[in-house]
């Protein structure tokens, strides 16, 4: 719409239906003679800059407003650290007082996330699966994701790694790795007895693997931890997790016993499913962490 046309001119045109300056006439499809579609939005940059300047102002005001509202809310909220805030109620009491006999977990948090509110945790673990899947979807090398120079660099790195390994790193790794792995396994297995659990232990295991990979190169790792093993481990762990939980969900909902012994609280083989689930979660997390590292660093596992 050209702007220099005055209002009355337009009105006049409109009344006796001349050139449709008022009516936004859109060519619903361009004529076939046109060789190419009009390359869209040539005027985009300056429009975009305008947009940005206003955008920043709006964003800042919005965020400041949000912060002030939240501060005011915090001021209205119950005080920090006092015992009589509404969050401390029968739910907490039961978690703490009955948790031991109902879940068999000494670590109430583990009991809560893996038994009382296990559905959330199931979703959470599948978030991990989704994350690694989508990262692989993006970064695995294929014909749409090829960057020759990057590949060249990786090749050189590989050659470099093979010739001159960092001796210090390797020795430190050889000393530390067993301890790290053991510690990770310990944290996983003690998930229901002490702080930690599948997630933290798995993270430790993954860190160990990453350290090993940095020290000795991916090919060494790939000897015992290839794509196939990765798939098998994650999928089986997650599947067993899902199946076990589905089993207990469905039975529990129908008020049927699961016939899973809770064992003596405090013993290592206790607290029923939680023990197994911790192991599954640990495996998933470890594989995912290492998977992230490997895929990011060279687009393959």
């Amino acid at each position: 719409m050209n702007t220099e046309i005055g209002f009355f001119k337009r009105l006049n045109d409109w009344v006796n239906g001349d050139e449709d300056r008022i009516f936004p006439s859109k060519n619903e499809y361009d004529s076939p003679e046109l060789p190419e579609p009009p390359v869209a939005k040539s005027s985009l940059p300056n429009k975009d800059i305008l947009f940005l300047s206003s955008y920043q102002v709006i964003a800042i005001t919005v965020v400041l407003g949000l912060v002030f509202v939240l501060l005011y809310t915090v001021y209205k909220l119950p005080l920090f650290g006092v015992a009589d805030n509404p969050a401390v109620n029968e739910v907490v009491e039961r978690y703490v007082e009955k948790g031991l006999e109902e879940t068999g977990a000494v670590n109430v948090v583990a009991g809560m996330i893996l038994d009382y509110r296990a559905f959330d945790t199931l979703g959470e673990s599948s978030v991990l699966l989704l994350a690694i899947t989508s990262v692989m979807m993006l970064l695995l090398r294929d014909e749409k994701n090829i960057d020759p120079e990057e590949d060249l660099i990786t090749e050189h790195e590989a050659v470099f790694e093979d010739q001159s390994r960092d001796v210090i790193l390797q020795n430190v790794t050889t000393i530390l790795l067993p301890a790290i792995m053991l510690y990770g396994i310990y944290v996983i297995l003690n998930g229901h007895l002490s702080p930690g659990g599948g997630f933290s232990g798995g993270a430790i295991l993954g860190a160990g693997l990453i350290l090993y990979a940095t020290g000795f190169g991916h090919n060494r790792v790939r000897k015992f931890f290839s794509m196939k093993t990765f798939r098998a481990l994650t999928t089986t762990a997650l599947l067993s997790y899902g199946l076990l939980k589905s089993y207990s969900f469905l039975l529990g909902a129908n008020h049927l016993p699961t016939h899973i012994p809770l064992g003596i609280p405090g013993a290592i083989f206790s607290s029923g499913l939680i023990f197994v689930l911790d192991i599954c979660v640990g495996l998933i997390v470890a594989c995912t962490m290492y998977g992230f590292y490997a895929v990011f660093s060279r687009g393959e596992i």
Partner: protein
Amino acid sequence: MNIISELINDRFMIAAVLLFGLGFMNLLLQKNLIKKIIAFNVMDSAIFLFLASQGYINGRIAPIITNGILDSEVYINPIPSGLVLTGIVVSVSVTAFFLALTVRLYGIYKTVDFDEIMLLVDKEAE
């Protein structure tokens, strides 16, 4: 006076809110994708700090029943800790996804400036 003491008392929550706003604003305004990701993590951590501070109760211990005391008066509120655990995992996963996207975009356009990338993307012929 009362307000002052309350502010000091609620310092964790206030810090959490400020961090949240910081992360939120940077997530909106930062052009650099990596900084955007960092901002997102700051935002999430702020929420976790908020949750954890909600769960804490003065003078109580972590809810791990080692000494056989089954009294909820002794332990802090375990629920926020569980929620934090869940939230952390989610934010880790999302961060990974975000980073992967950034890597791909950098590979294509050789820049991590969000606006530039958006302009280039809009110019893509499909």
